[in-house]
């Protein structure tokens, strides 16, 4: 029988991989994808706790997190398109107009 620890460790590894991706990659779209990876890792934790504790709240929360992820992807990609139209690049080192 698989204990909850195993699911939590897999989720932690996925989350840390997402963190490495966000810190290392410079392409704005890939950074968005790494954020999706981190959200997914958190969803795995929620579902694991929900199934092991017999409580439905975790799965409802996963539902809401997926809604937020879809909204975030739509708005974020629209921002990326607008940036690409203005600067011809999605490299976040070149996007520094808000830097003081």
């Amino acid at each position, binding site marked *: *029988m*698989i*204990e*909850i*620890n*195993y699911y939590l*460790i*897999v989720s*932690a*590894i*996925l*989350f*840390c*991989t*997402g*963190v*490495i*991706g966000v*810190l*290392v*990659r*410079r*392409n704005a*779209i*890939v950074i968005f*994808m*790494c954020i*999706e*990876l981190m959200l*997914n890792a958190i*969803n*795995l934790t929620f579902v*694991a706790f929900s*199934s*092991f*504790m*017999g*409580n439905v709240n975790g*799965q*409802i929360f*996963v*539902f*809401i997190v*997926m*809604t*937020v*992820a*879809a*909204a975030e*992807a*739509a*708005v974020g*990609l*629209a921002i*990326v*398109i*607008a940036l690409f139209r*203005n600067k011809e690049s*999605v*490299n976040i080192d070149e996007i520094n107009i808000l830097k003081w």
Partner: protein
Amino acid sequence: MKFDLETVLFFSLAVMAIGSAIMMITRKSPITSALYLILNFFTVSGLYLLLKAQFIAIIQVLVYMGAIMVLFLFVIMLLNLQDEKILKEKFTYRKITAVLLSIFLFCLLSFTIYFGFSGKFTAMSDKAVEIGTAEFLGSELFTNFSFPFELASFLLLAAIVGAVVLAKKKFE
């Protein structure tokens, strides 16, 4: 630990999930990254099925792999991006710092998991099968959680309007 089907499935799915995540952050081309991310979502949806959350697993395939990743692939192909240059450099100060920070974060998380949950929650709850069905989740969503549900629909409406306004041709 005995080697029943659940254990074998869990370990193969976990290895595939971690492997595809690592492949995703190391590929130079954004398209390849997106395809590995789709593979990762697929394996995680298999893990949801192992956790007896059938509805969430299906929603993962429909919403994440079907909708969100198509949006990502569409934008990548629309922008016609080049490969990233930074991944060609071997070891930079920034990369080493990022990996060390993430390993530190992982140590912190596994410390918490080990001392917080070892020995607890060894078996899945008896109610797990009942909870995962679309029927149970739907009845919960429309009774106890109707307010967050409506808020989520408002959020989606705001996101649609925001995306159209931001991606419009003229940026006023």
